[in-house]
């Protein structure tokens, strides 16, 4: 197990009344993403718990791109990873954010 934390500042606040959103499942090669609104001066905090140790640099790159893509703030994102590939991580994050912003499908 490895715990990683990423913080980004300067994002635009997401919708105030958005509700916490969960995407994905805890299963081999998959992950669970929880997006919650938190007032923290536009910052985004991402906490990752992962079964795969030693991929910090790739997580950093995935999260940098995620933040650049959406530019959101005032969010707490919790990730419970069971060895998902970066492709799955990105897809789940995008799905969670789109659902969070769009209020479901």
């Amino acid at each position, binding site marked *: 197990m490895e715990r990683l934390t990423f913080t980004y500042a300067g994002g635009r606040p997401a919708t105030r009344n958005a509700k916490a959103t969960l995407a994905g499942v805890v299963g081999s*090669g998959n992950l669970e993403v929880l997006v919650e609104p938190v007032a923290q001066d536009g910052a985004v905090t991402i906490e990752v718990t992962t079964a795969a140790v030693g*991929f910090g640099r*790739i997580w950093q*790159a995935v999260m940098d791109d995620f933040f650049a893509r959406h530019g959101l703030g005032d969010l707490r994102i919790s990730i419970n990873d069971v060895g998902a*590939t970066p*492709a799955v991580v990105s*897809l789940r994050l*995008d*799905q969670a954010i789109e659902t969070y912003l769009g209020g479901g499908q």
Partner: protein
Amino acid sequence: MLQQTAPATAPSCAPSSAPAARDWNTQARNREARLARAAPLARGKVVKSADAAALLEAILETGDRVCLEGNNQKQADFLAKVLAGLDPARVNGLHMVQSVLALPEHLDVFESGVASRLDFSFSGPQGARLARLVSGGQIAIGAIHTYLELFSRYFVDLTPRVSLVCAQAADRNGNLYTGPNTEDTPVIVEATAFKRGIVIAQVNELVDTLPRVDIPADWVDFVMASPKPHYIEPLFTRDPAQISDIQVLMAMMAIKGIYAPYEVNRLNHGIGFDTAAIELILPTYAESLGLKGKICRHWALNPHPALIPAIEAGFVQSVHSFGSELGMEAYIRARPDVFFTGPDGSMRSNRAMCQAAGHYACDLFIGSTLQIDLAGNSSTATLGRIAGFGGAPNMGADARGRRHASPTWLKAGREARAGRNLVPRGQKLVVQMVETYREHMQPAFVETLDAFALAESAGMDLPPVMIYGEDVTHILTEEGIANLLLCRTDEEREQAIRGVAGYTPVGLGRDKRAVENLRDRGIILRPEDLGIDKRSATRDLLAARSIKDLVRASGGLYDPPKRFRNW
């Protein structure tokens, strides 16, 4: 070469002596001698399976070129066992010329010393053992061919002297019924029989009347009922339950980013889960885009069960196949407008014909791979395995000899030639579809293909590249599509590939500004550029999510092999 038949003592420079009469019929006479040796073992053309070893010893001569029918699916497994069990003191030095090495016996013949030289196309599960036998000096490889190349050489310089083939049934005259898995049999038998070779067939049963004749008796010398029915591998059955959301996302990109704009109607799919996902979202996603009747109408493809929902939805008009697939017999029989079937109702496949169709008549090939380098070269070779190619290079290559036009072919040709002073011509679409990381975090994008190290360690003339970068038109990953047709320099091409290589070291090594520039020019397309909503990229989009769903979609006609039944 002229044969020297004059006595050695004859004056060699006498100007008046007439040239020695050349014997022009040595092959037929050799054939007669072999048949005479075997005659006591046969009643007409029928030989008992207990006499199989004696028959092969009577027929075979040291150094013969032998085709032991090994296909993707059906296997001449009984004759393979008998051949591998022969005494190398009596038969040795055989040169095996066969498309697929699927069974252990296909390599046992080299370990025992019965055979020593090999020309082939695909070794699949035997790849690691083949590499060991080659490095141990027990096998000399002539070449690793594509299917079409090997079949072509049967008619030029690798004609089998003896062929050991496989059919469903024979009659007493020696006519053969192959059933749906015709596969390589016609091409093997034609090359052998018309060059005075010997054809021996193992069959599951001897019958009085065949459902249809696939190989005429004239071309067959001996038939024997094997003790057990021949083995058939259900090689192309993909359980939809194993398709991931990422594969659904990539399938959506293939349809919206390639099939729709290029109007792809004649195509071949690879055999992986990536392309099965495309087949399974035709009735859902492609239908929702209004593409029915506009894409995916004519196929060169084995009868994949994953195609059933698209056939039932009316997308698919015709399918010609290399071989059949276990469990699809009744479904195929009930859909004769779609498949190629005989008067008996069962399918007639033909690997050589379907390979030619895939090469010349299809506008698109899409398939997966293990490694892609910065020039777009693609390879499934890994160190310690000599796996061969099968048909992918013939499917996944621009057919330079093609002359007929189609909207797909013309559009690809225009894109490749825009702004260049070149004679107009079209180009085939060759798409490599890969997730950037394979299982165990193995990157699919690499600086250098393992094929180069393999070529060096195995002493090959060339690195075993499956699809050359110059033929690849698009690379599709979960990150996007790189359209290599539009790249004008090696640098652009490299950045286009890096730009879809995700978080692999190759992808992380991209020049971000160059990649954004390629995206602005439409050379790189992201899912959002294509208007794809990632929230719908889930397994819910699959028209069948399990083997049981496929059975249901077929109206109960598809009868999956036991190993795929989990209900």
